[in-house]
């Protein structure tokens, strides 16, 4: 199920190492390539370097050695302006949604257009009509367009995460990064968010990198699984062949109940989702 190997990689790590100023080595000589449209789940214990790995793609973290190529461009060497242009094409979703709480949902989603507009326009808050429509359409695609004019902090966690997805979509990205996107959500909502991510990734042919701790979710949604331990890639392969033993090898310990999110029956998730929409 791994995407066609013929197409050139959209994201490529070449011998990437990241050592933090305090001496902690988060990534050790990592080399990976991700082709267009692949839905990759990165698993590992906390502290294994998952978060650092995906943050190297949009350079929220700058590697200490090696190169990260995005569409053939080495992002590690970009200047400020070029980096912002590169980031415009990379959407990102966070564990705690990271919305601007006091702004409206629509404002939050429109923030995805900032890098595309001249600064004077954004400072005055003058978004082109097309961008507003794009933002509303993004909200529609995650099913919460009716909340557009509400303040972001009036929404539930699952709704906020969908706003964050809409914000990323509004960037019209080629790459989607998600850092523990469901860690703060209850099981039905978590599955709903993962289904949304997977569906949008398919529809837009997005190269998607998702950090997850839960092995059952990784198995359920991933095309390909990358396992990290202590900053090194210890597993890389299609999701089909992965078993509990694989995860035990990646984690270096036995699987525990808290490594599983728990399966939410589709009906239950849909019901919860419907309830959330009705609210």
């Amino acid at each position, binding site marked *: 199920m791994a995407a066609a190997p013929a197409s050139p990689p959209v994201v490529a790590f070449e011998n990437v190492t990241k050592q933090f100023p305090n001496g902690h080595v988060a990534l050790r000589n990592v080399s990976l390539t991700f082709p267009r449209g692949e839905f990759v789940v990165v698993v590992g214990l906390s502290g294994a370097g998952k978060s650092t790995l995906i943050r190297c793609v949009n350079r929220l973290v700058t590697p200490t050695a090696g190169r990260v190529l995005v569409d053939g461009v080495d992002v590690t060497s970009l200047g400020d302006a070029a980096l912002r242009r590169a980031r415009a094409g990379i959407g990102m979703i966070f564990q705690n949604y990271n919305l601007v709480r006091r702004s409206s949902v629509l404002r939050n989603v429109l923030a995805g257009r900032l890098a595309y507009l001249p600064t004077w326009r954004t400072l005055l808050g003058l978004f082109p009509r097309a961008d507003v429509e794009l933002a*509303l359409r993004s909200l529609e695609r995650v099913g919460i*367009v*009716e*909340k*557009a*004019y509400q303040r972001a902090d009036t929404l539930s966690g699952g709704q906020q995460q969908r706003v964050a997805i809409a914000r990323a979509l509004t960037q019209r990205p080629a790459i989607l990064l998600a850092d523990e996107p469901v860690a703060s959500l209850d099981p039905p909502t978590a599955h709903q968010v993962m289904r949304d991510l997977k569906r949008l990734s398919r529809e837009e042919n997005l190269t998607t990198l998702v950090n997850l701790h839960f092995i059952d979710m990784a198995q359920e949604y991933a095309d390909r699984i990358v396992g990290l331990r202590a900053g090194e890639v210890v597993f890389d392969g299609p999701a089909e062949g992965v078993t509990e033993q694989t995860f035990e090898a990646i984690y270096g310990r036995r699987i525990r109940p808290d490594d599983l999110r728990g399966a939410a029956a589709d009906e239950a998730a849909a019901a919860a989702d419907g309830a959330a929409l009705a609210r």
Partner: protein
Amino acid sequence: MPAKPPFPWRGWLAAFAVAAILAWSWRGTGFSLAVLAQGLPEMGEYLARLTPSAERPWHARYLPEIQARLLETVRIAFAASVIGSALSLPFVLVGTRTLAPARWAYNLGRGFLNLLRTIPDLVLATVLVAALGLGPLPGLVALVFFTFGIVAKLLSDTIETVDPGPMEAIAAAGGTRLQRALFAVFPQVAPDYAAYTLYAFEINVRVAAVLGLVGAGGIGQTLMTDIQLFRYGRIGLVVFSIFVVVLVIDAFSTWLRSRLV
């Protein structure tokens, strides 16, 4: 598509009101960037004359007087802080809801406090200069009032939030109102009380530094005379020394307060 939210009338109305007030103020104060731009070179020249130079050095012989006046400034601030905060202690027996003997006494006390706090310190000092004569005394009295107002307010606010358990216990043991205050309340708020006194002292030093501009003693008096006599070298030195003293006392007092609470 969702319904657009209603037009934010209230926000726009408020913005319009603020704009109107600003326009009114602009006209009333003769604010003019042109005048400012024209005057800035002169002010720059004036400032340049205040900095030490070969023609206008900061003479060491100015120092004894400046030192004496600075000392007077600190003395005014210190004495006012101690007296004012001491006076606020008996006041809170009336001006605090939980300690007041009766509702009317509390209202009366609070009313007096609020009235006192509306009088700007330097206005009070000016009037007192007329009544008590030039010199540090009117400044001291003005700052005593000011300190009393601020410490009494902060202290009674704190007392109202304090744990009422000990007070009940003293009352249950047959303690009087004064005993409740002395044994149950004051021990709990003692560090806050000290911190408020220090805080008042910080402000008092700043105010005492300018009291002399209205004739109420301290370094400001030297500054006013020097300005009137165009003694540039001295003006610069005086302003600089005020600056240093205020910063040092501020830093010391802030440090002390951070250790208290």
